[in-house]
């Protein structure tokens, strides 16, 4: 066998807070090889040490607070022993890297052209003119439209997908032998994600470089990697060919991870939502999935009619209104008791603004909102506060949604006391019951949020939302920030609560596979409008609108056997719903294609 491009043996990385603190190990005795032209995926949840592994190989960790032991050889030569000056010559030339956050990974003050050109000037010794010509050629290669004109553009003028293309051009500039891609598509919308994955594959075939792909997303793993390495809390738990891992994963953690991954299409032919079947990650014990009942055939608890929310954009000498972002445009739907309606779409489509407008956290410009009969849109002050008892919200970021200085018991009890529903003692008793109900212990009431994990915090947020006995919960990307295994558990909790309490959910999400599991009905949003709405089986099995079809096709399938380079589609970005001041929204027509299934024409 030929020598691997990168050979890592016994890699152990530790951190400490300062010179007086003890070391804590975050990657333990890790070994792996990557050959030329090969893609190895390191997959794991947060805290698994997968990103630290790549930063250790690149030696990009802060020297004073980190310690790297073991060996990492690039084509036989030891990287961990190189003096910093020589290591610098390896970075960006023999090994290059792309990162997760395209929005913050480019220098906002420099043109994208100069940021690519400086790599070649630094490593290949090209002149300014040569580097510029080469950079433009690279931009064309990564399919940035109008590459020549874009050379002098600053990053803030580009979309996330475009920026990630610039990052890739930069990484390829000095023709690396190894590309490390650290969650390169996690921050991107699903349709853009497909394009970027395709691009990396194409370039790998063309250049023969090795790729180390770091991700938490099993769908992406199945799509890109030849071999897969699974990490759990700093340890390698399993390594093998991707097909093997998916078909015959041995370690309970691998199987738990795979079972928790929502698979698009797994709900085909079923009418109602179903919980995730789970496998315990230490014992390997399986809990089967369970189907939920249909929504009650009763009058709706939430009626939204012709909702419009716009954000004014000001400009000019006297800061006049020059236009508006039409975040939500003429949106109407109903939600019945015990029903889950999902709002899906990509970033900027207005799904979150819709949820916030219904709770009046954002002021809608027009429209009727009736929550349990109360005209939410016409209320103010005390009446609005009281009306919100029937509709509560669970936010996306479990770390930001709890005040770090307030104990969880106080946080959960707060709405109950503030609404004057009972005494302090009653509030605490109820908070304790709810904590038990969401799978925590009533004893944790006096703890502060930082003592809980992300999944536990989200459970606390759910308990807080339940404190007022609401009929509706708006779940705004409530499981998106959670690790795969936690995500499935929290989804199951939400579904259990729905069944026992008869809750209705407005489930806002960009994750099509999760939506397919949890919803009774689905509304697809694009540029502030609902383009298609209907029962879940109809939307997923017979999508009518072109955008819905595209959205479903773009979702990576966590099954390496079904891998296809099927997205050779045009480079397209999501458009902005900014409109000039005198813009008249066109009148939309709807066509009913099936029972309760409407498509915008």
């Amino acid at each position: 066998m030929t020598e691997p491009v990168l050979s890592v043996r016994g890699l152990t990385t530790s951190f400490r807070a300062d010179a007086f603190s003890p070391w804590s190990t975050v990657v333990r005795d890790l070994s792996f090889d990557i050959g030329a032209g090969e893609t190895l995926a390191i997959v794991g949840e947060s805290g698994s040490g997968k990103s630290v592994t790549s930063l250790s190989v690149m030696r990009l960790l802060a020297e004073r607070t980190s310690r790297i032991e073991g060996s990492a050889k690039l084509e036989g030569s030891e990287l961990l022993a190189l003096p910093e000056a020589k290591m610098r010559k390896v970075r960006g030339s023999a090994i290059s890297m792309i990162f997760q956050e395209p929005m913050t990974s480019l220098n906002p003050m420099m043109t994208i052209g100069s940021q690519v050109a400086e790599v070649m000037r630094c490593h290949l010794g090209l002149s300014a003119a040569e580097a510029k010509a080469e950079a433009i050629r690279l931009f064309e290669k990564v399919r940035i439209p109008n590459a020549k004109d874009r050379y002098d553009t600053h990053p803030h003028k580009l979309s996330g997908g475009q920026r990630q293309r610039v990052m890739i051009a930069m990484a390829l500039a000095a023709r690396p032998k190894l590309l490390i891609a650290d969650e390169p598509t996690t921050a991107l919308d699903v349709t853009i994600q497909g394009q970027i994955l395709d691009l990396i594959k194409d370039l790998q075939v063309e250049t023969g470089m090795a790729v180390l792909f770091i991700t938490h997303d099993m769908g992406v793993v199945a799509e890109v990697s030849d071999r897969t390495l699974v990490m759990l809390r700093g340890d390698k738990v399993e390594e093998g060919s991707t097909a093997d891992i998916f078909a015959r994963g041995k370690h309970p953690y691998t199987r738990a991870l795979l079972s928790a991954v929502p698979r698009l299409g797994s709900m085909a032919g079923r009418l109602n939502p179903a919980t995730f079947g789970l496998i315990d990650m230490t014992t390997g014990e399986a809990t089967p999935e369970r189907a939920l009942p249909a929504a009650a055939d009763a009058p709706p608890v939430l009626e939204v009619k012709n909702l419009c929310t716009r954000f004014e954009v000001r400009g000019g000498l006297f800061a006049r209104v020059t236009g508006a972002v039409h975040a939500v445009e003429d949106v109407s739907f109903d939600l019945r008791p015990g029903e889950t309606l999902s709002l899906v779409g990509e970033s900027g489509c207005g799904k979150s603004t819709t949820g916030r407008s219904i709770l009046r956290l954002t002021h809608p410009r027009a429209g009727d909102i009736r929550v349990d009969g109360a005209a939410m849109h016409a209320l103010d002050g005390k009446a609005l506060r009281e009306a919100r008892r029937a509709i509560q919200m669970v936010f996306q970021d479990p770390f930001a949604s709890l005040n770090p200085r307030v104990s969880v018991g106080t946080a959960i009890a707060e709405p109950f006391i503030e609404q004057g529903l009972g005494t302090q003692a009653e509030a605490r008793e109820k908070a304790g019951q709810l904590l038990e109900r969401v799978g925590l212990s009533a004893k944790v009431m006096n703890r502060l949020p930082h003592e809980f994990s992300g999944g536990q915090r989200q459970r606390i947020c759910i308990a807080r939302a339940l404190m007022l006995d609401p009929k509706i919960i708006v779940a705004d990307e409530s499981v998106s920030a959670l690790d795969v295994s936690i995500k499935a558990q929290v989804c199951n909790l939400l579904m259990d609560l729905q069944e026992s309490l008869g809750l209705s959910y407005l489930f806002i999400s960009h994750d099509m596979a999760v939506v397919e599991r949890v919803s009774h009905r689905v509304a697809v949003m694009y540029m502030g409008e609902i383009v298609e709405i209907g029962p879940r089986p109809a939307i997923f099995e017979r999508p009518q609108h072109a955008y819905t079809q595209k959205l479903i096709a773009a979702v990576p399938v966590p099954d390496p056997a079904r891998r296809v380079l099927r997205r050779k589609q045009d480079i397209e970005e999501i458009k902005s719903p900014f409109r000039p001041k005198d813009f008249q929204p066109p009148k939309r027509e709807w066509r009913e294609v099936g029972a309760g299934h409407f498509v915008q024409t």
Partner: protein
Amino acid sequence: MVAYVLRRIGSTILVMVLVSLLVFLLLRLAPGDPAAVLAGDNASAEQIATLRRLLGLDDPLPVQFLSWLWAVAQGNLGASLYSAEPVTLLMSQRAEATLSLALATLTVAVPLAIVMGVTAAHRAGTGTDRVLMLFAVAGFSLPAFVVGYLLVYLLAIQAGVLPVQGYQPIAEGIGGWAAHLVLPAITLGLIYTALIARITRATMLETLSEDFIRTARAKGLPMRRVLLVHALRNAGVPIVTVIGIGVALLIGGVVVTETVFNIPGVGRLVVDAIARRDYPVIQGVILVCSGIYVLLNLLTDLSYTLIDPRIRY
């Protein structure tokens, strides 16, 4: 862009009017009758009344304010009660000394402070960083009249290498002019350098932890380039801001430094005027100093657009 500049100029004028109002009210609302103070201890009630009328002190306050503002807008800051000379003339006579001191300080302090701040941030946590930051916190803590006398005692009185006090106009020879400026400029520059160095370090540290710095390092760029091209420019806006805001410290420092070194500048003018209760001079100097401060901060605000391509209002 043009709209932004015009808007900023508009709000600058608004702030200046507000400053004028504050300065005006400060002097008018002070206890005691200004006319009585002006007329002196031996003046008769009739003399004071005449003076009140002459000064327009019998008019309602808004009228007094507007007529004063109108005069100021035409460049008339009134005349000294002590020497009867126009305030603008008194100030222009003393401008050279003060401007020499301020500019000498600025040209040395700003580059020095930025080098110190960048070095400390790059070497954060090391001995170099600690020494630089100890120097900065000391510079921040030593009042001008302590440092000034220490320098005078050591370098002028004991070593005798520099003049003890006073100012020599540039027209009388550049060597003497510079020799007289060395100690005052060090005295004045210490706190300003310390302030900018501290902010530069803090902003650079923050910038150095940004994702794009990790990108630049992953590209294998030399550290010098990472620091000076990638990080420093991104840290530019806060640094430029503190250079502008620090001018207020500089103006306050000028007053003390000129007293310590007996330099006949605008700072001495105002200290003497306060001792003599020479209201028009006090008013005029405060107003002009505030104007310079506001103008410099307008310039720093406008320079943001040159530093940061994202700012296009």
